[in-house]
């Protein structure tokens, strides 16, 4: 049983199911695309969270992922390229009682919309950004993205890219992000879990989902997704739990000279007690940063979830505070305030 979410967004009086969010639109993503799994997780988690149906707003930019609002029956806004986070900021500030979900991609939020992305994270507006990372531009048919690995061969990099890729989590932490989680499209339960965790976080939540583009970048995440060695390459962290992974649950992380190191339990006198316990709540970003940047294993789950005041709360507080102190209650008061004079008949 999941814990419930406490905030000012109105709750539904009746229990909801994913069906309540079923859209009547024909989904136009490619068969086998990871996006199908993500939208299903989202509908499931909307029902679990249990806000009134009409209080969900899904906002997107441009790209394959950004078609998502059409496939969820909620209020939806399909924006322009890169601007989803700015549009969503306006929605949330205008009405803080709405639950905001941004569907965006590695091109949309890390290239053309990079500026809006870091600034929304810095402001800590209470909204949830689902960043579909497929390391490629799909909708324009296969050009490299800011997360494509150095050397990736794509339509616009036939000899390999000569650009260093962004790590989403590193940007989030650099922008003083308060929530960062990662999932993988095929891990539907984990996706649902981290989306719920994101909703329960008061502040900007970035959920990066590694998503396979079957057409233009198939197998980008093979190392993590293939059955044979997946378990040895994937660490799913949980707050308060030791960071243990591996097929035989015998691998773990320890801190060694300010670096994270993979160790094997039972070797060199290492016991479970020596394994580092994950602390998602700590304000210090350093271990979170190392986890986000790690490649062997790749780290999934809620890497960071730390409380901080949100822009929308501060805005509302400031308005109430100034209202309480001011003698100006309406426009007539303002128009007649300060220096005025009268010309008589």
């Amino acid at each position: 049983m999941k814990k419930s979410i406490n905030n000012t967004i109105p709750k539904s009086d009746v229990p909801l199911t994913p069906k309540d969010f079923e859209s009547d639109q024909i989904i136009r993503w490619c068969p086998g695309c990871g996006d199908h799994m993500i939208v299903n997780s989202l509908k499931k988690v909307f029902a679990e969270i249990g806000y009134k149906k009409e209080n969900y707003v899904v906002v997107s930019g441009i790209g394959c992922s950004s078609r998502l609002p059409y496939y969820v029956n909620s209020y939806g806004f399909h924006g322009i390229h890169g601007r989803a986070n700015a549009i969503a900021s306006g929605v949330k500030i205008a009405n803080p009682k709405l639950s905001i979900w941004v569907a965006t991609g590695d091109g949309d939020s890390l290239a053309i919309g990079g500026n809006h992305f870091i600034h929304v994270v810095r402001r800590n507006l209470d909204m949830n950004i689902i960043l579909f990372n497929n390391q490629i531009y799909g909708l324009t048919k296969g050009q490299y993205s800011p997360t494509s690995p150095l050397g990736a061969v794509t339509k616009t990099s036939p000899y390999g890219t000569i650009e260093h890729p962004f790590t989403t989590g590193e940007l989030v932490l650099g922008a003083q992000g308060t929530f960062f989680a990662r999932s993988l499209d095929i891990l539907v339960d984990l996706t649902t879990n981290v989306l719920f965790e994101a909703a329960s976080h008061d502040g900007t939540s970035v959920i990066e989902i590694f998503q396979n583009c079957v057409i233009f970048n198939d197998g980008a995440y093979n190392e993590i997704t293939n059955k044979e060695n997946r378990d040895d390459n994937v660490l799913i962290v949980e707050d308060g739990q030791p960071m243990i992974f591996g097929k035989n649950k015998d691998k773990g992380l320890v801190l060694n000279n300010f670096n994270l190191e993979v160790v094997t339990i039972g070797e060199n006198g290492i016991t479970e007690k020596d394994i580092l316990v994950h602390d998602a709540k700590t304000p210090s970003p350093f271990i979170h940063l190392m986890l986000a940047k790690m490649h062997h294993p790749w780290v999934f789950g809620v890497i960071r979830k730390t409380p901080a005041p949100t822009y929308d709360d501060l805005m509302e507080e400031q308005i109430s505070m100034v209202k309480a102190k001011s003698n100006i209650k309406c426009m007539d008061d303002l128009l007649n305030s300060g220096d005025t004079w009268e010309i008589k008949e």
Partner: protein
Amino acid sequence: MNEETTPMSGRKQVNDIVIKFVGDSGDGIQLSGNIFADTLAHIGLDMATFPDFPAEVRAPRNTTFGVSGFQIHFSNKKVLTPGDEYDVLVCFNPASLKVNLKNVKQGGIIIVDSSNFTPRSLETAGYTSNPLEDNSLDNYIVLQIPASEMSISINSDLDKKSAERTKNMYILGVLYNMFGFELKPAINYINNKFKNTSQLINANLKSLEEGYKFSETLKNFPKFYLAKCELIPGKYRDIQGNVATAWGLMAAAEKAGLHLFIGSYPITPATEILVELSKHRELGVKTFQAEDEIAGITSAIGASFAGALAATTTSGPGLSLKVEAMGLAVMTELPIVIVDVQRAGPSTGMPTKSEQADLYMSMFGRNGEAPIPIIAASSSVDCFFAAFEAAKIALEHMTPVILLSDGYIGLGSSVFRIPKMADLPEIRPPFADPNVKYYPYERDDEWYVRKWAIPGTPGLQHRVGGLEKSDIYGEVTTDAKNHEKMVINREEKIKRIAHKWPLQRITGPEDADLLVVSWGGTKGQVEGAIQNLTTKGYRISHTHFRYINPLPLNTHEILKSGKKVIVCELNRGQFANILRMNYQDIEFHQYNKVQGQPFTVRELENAFTELLNS
């Protein structure tokens, strides 16, 4: 100066005066101007003011490019502009005299702080001889006031620098005597301004009073008197154009019963609108200082989707960045107000200087067929009403609206007869009824306006976005016929707004020899020129456009009434060309200026008489 002799205490009666204070930015120019304007207001005179400052925050002292100014035009009659030429120029240093002398009326008064006409400051200003001694100012009445020296000597209890700073008050004292003003309003202003430092209050007051007394000792000191004011009775205040824009938006939000959201990025000369709005949390204004111009407008679109009255404020370079998002607002048919306080372009251009050259961009600067209504404010005070109206049209017609202001009226101030909120028109947005099945692109037959369904309302869940949608139902589609229909629907919606505009009016004779056409912030100068020519016996009429897109329904009829038609604007003929495009049977003459400066009444008079005589 319209002098008439009157027996009134030996003072000459005048009705209309233009004063300009000039000097270094540190000379207290704006403060002197504000105190003087405040006194004029208390006397009940009409006025318009205009601050003139360099782009640099603090330019090097005594340089010609560092000169800042504050111009005040006051009268007991209606004041139309801050004025072309100065009756009185108050100079705090040689550089400011050098820059401004050309605009002083022949025979006008020049007041100088003679303590600052030192060999060094004369040299920095580029003078080879001292204009106070070389007879070059013989055509003017020059009053040499050693204001800095005197301020230092009478305030010996203060350090030299602080004492010297009160020189502006010393000169203000001279001016108060010149126009027969009581010192009381100035004393009150100073008491308020320096609330916490009694030492500064005393020094400023002392300089003010001493300056007043000193002027009595001057030989042939000119003294004037202004007769009672002829303004319409009512309650008045002084208001800056940008503040008026901010308040107009706030008034519209209150009238519509909506929250006001502003997504903006600071940019000269529009910044003051954001600055003003950010003060008004007490009225629930939500200002969002965005990370860039694009986030400014896109956050406003988001806020509009969520049910707020949303606006974004900017100037030309910012408008360029907002273009794509303006198309999104057209496509989603959401209300937003886009305020462009125009400045001289292209590119960064001259940020502190004014121009009307963003008209083409406002009309045409978007991809696809994307019509947007345009309203142009015609004065600092009109910014209030134009902003209110832009918001009303946006909200009631579900469309972005562009409000064109400019640096000249935006930064200028004039006297504002305070309206009552109850007298402003109602604003009724077309909210969707939650009890009726909602189709996002269903329109009413009369205005072609779709309904506004606000997130949080049960049962009205829907999706909008930049992709073309099916008529009525709002599904994503690339159907050929549907696209054409939607393009025409959006076009028709904007065209029909013309039925909401008041009919275009003409002032002056109906069969005039010359019809003058103007739009936006040039109204005052054009009216001034036409008044002068009418007095001289010319048959000349005027029509001023506030509504640029769509044009008022009777535009053609109005334009046909003049034997000759001239369009004057601060660009190379953008409005003239828009009129040509619409009314090919009319010959349009043009008078254009792109110097970053407003028209002068005199140059317009010359242009009009030249055309009349040709």
